[in-house]
């Protein structure tokens, strides 16, 4: 397993925390929490990735970079990955952004109910 950390510029605040996905084979779960403004995390997306697959650091970098360039949702992002493809990672990121109320969609799912 490998733990990776990334930071991206991001300005859109999430309205609420969000949880989507499952750590199932070929899938991942994402937890998004609004950042702590006192902690200087304003205007940044801080991403932690834990993945069962090693050797894909650059793929993660590229995938995340692309997503946050288009969807700059700030906050603390935690990705628990079980070998998801970049396409699925992007889909789950989008779902999390929608569920957090930071990106618009008519089919937001996985809203936090806890």
């Amino acid at each position, binding site marked *: *397993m490998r733990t990776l950390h990334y930071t991206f510029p991001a300005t859109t605040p999430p309205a609420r*925390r969000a*949880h989507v996905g*499952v*750590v*199932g*084979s070929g*899938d991942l*779960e994402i*937890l998004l*929490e609004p950042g702590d403004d006192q902690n200087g995390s304003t205007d940044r997306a801080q991403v932690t990735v*834990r*993945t*069962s697959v090693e050797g894909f650091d650059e793929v993660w970098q590229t995938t995340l970079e692309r997503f946050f360039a288009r969807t700059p949702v700030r906050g603390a992002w*935690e990705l*628990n*990955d*079980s070998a998801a493809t970049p396409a699925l990672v992007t889909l789950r990121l989008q779902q999390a952004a929608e569920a957090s109320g930071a990106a618009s969609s008519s089919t937001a799912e996985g809203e*936090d*109910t*806890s």
Partner: protein
Amino acid sequence: MTSTTSHDSGERNEVARALGASIDGQSIDWQRVLHRHSFLELDALGRAEALLDEGSIRVLCGPFERLESPWLEPQNVTPQSDDGVIVARGTIDGTGVVVLSIEQAFQGGGTGEVSGAKISQALRLAAADSRSGTPVPAVLLLETGGVRLQEANLGLNAVAEICSALLELRPLAPVVGVVAGSVGSFGGISIATGLCTHVVVTPEARIGLNGAAVIEQEAGVEEFDSSDHALIWAVDGGEQRRRTGLADTLVVDDADALRDAVRQAVAAGTTRPGAHRSERLDVLDARLATIDPANPPEPARLREMWGDTYDMPPTGPATTHRGSDVQPQAGTTHSSMTPSRRGRTWITALSGTTPRPVIDSVLRADTDEAVYLAVVPDPDNHFYRARQGQVGVTESAALARTMREITAEDDGRAERRAIVAVVDLPSQAYGRIEEMAGLHQAMASAVDATEAARVAGHPLITLVVGQALSGGFLTHGLQASQILVLDDPGVEIHAMHKEAAAHITLRTVDELDRLAKKIPPLSYDVRDWATLGFCDGLLSVEDADTPTEGDVRSVARDIADAVTRARSGPTDLSNRLESVQAKKVRKASRTVRDTLARQWNEQ
């Protein structure tokens, strides 16, 4: 178009069934096919939501509590933030319930320390509320391959705690088990399934103690071909379990149908004491007697032989053969397990009498203060997969009957006798006939009777003198109030044999051994097992195979001390979270317990 068409073509019928239109014999409701919402396609949270009144769900110990397994990351396995179990409070037709939903996509639904504690502690909270006047029915969504092998011994213990908590709640509020598929309910959790008030299944569901792959690995492809899906469903399938009375409601894969079935089961309330499947030992014995392992029936035949309610079977006992008359099917492999004499040796030495056979593979020895029980090898066992001392169907039934008898014998006694389980068993029986006959249900009967004896006030002491593996240990030993183990290299406690565990977790035996050095629940060394929080004594002896007089005296003294502790201790298993070691090693379980208790009544 008409909404109902009578079926004339077998092929079309098959297609309709696959689409969830109907189940055997009924006409096909095409409207239903078109409007069906698949329950199987939902994740654990979606399933819980689908069963609860709309908008009533409240998730406890959710993902943001980050109560993940502490054991996976060190093994290079990505944890999940809620460890794969949803604990949801909500209402069903206005009644407050708790839904415990296993996420089958995470680690195959495997029971680990945290996921297991979430289930058992939620059941205990439901029982506490029920005792104080507000019954809280529980709905368990059971999709799991069994104990999570990365957390082996902690998972095995978690299953024992789940069974105990389930039995604590069951007299007070209904416990509804739902096995919808697609993983099914296997391993220790299948025993919990066998304890439920009511079991709902779909045709896609499976219930069994040992999965086909595990049996094939242990006994060969001739015993159980795990690539033969028709055979697997003929033996373990939801429809078969319903048609043989091992499940109560069979519905198609439709969220509304599942919801209706659960609503009815919740509304039906508790079952009267003595009438639960796992308490009907008369039925269990009579059913098992209809099977001659030398000439076993086809699974489909079992439906006529046993009937679809769990009641006395319409078929009488078969003539059973023993010994060399019964041979494993040609081509099957002989068990890798070797018969051990330690069980017989220690039960004889400790009781100071000649133990009498309840059946040839289950021994009972009585003294004034205690009753000793042991499962021993029986080379002539007609259930030939239990010849090396494994716990099989008849062993489970005999243990259940004996536990009930002892409990009844001591009714009215000022002080109930201790019951000492002398444990040396290589595992549960791995066989196709066993699964067909519902080994999980037989084991549930033994677990139920053992729990009942403990709750009645019998100090239950387990003494592990040799191997104590997996479902065998869950059935005989792991429900005890006090567990003592000999400090001897021949003593081994685990969820699965080393070779099989390595195979299933895709590791070599060497890798497994290396990992076990830093992950105590994985270890096969009994000294590591003793650190997990539920060991009440690691006993030194000179010779575990042929105990000296001094060995017997000192072990007897340790048992007497354990009896004293048990008499003043709780009659449930809560002390397993209170030991000095539990406070170090089972921190995660304790956090789950405390967080759930805090969140239980929050709004």
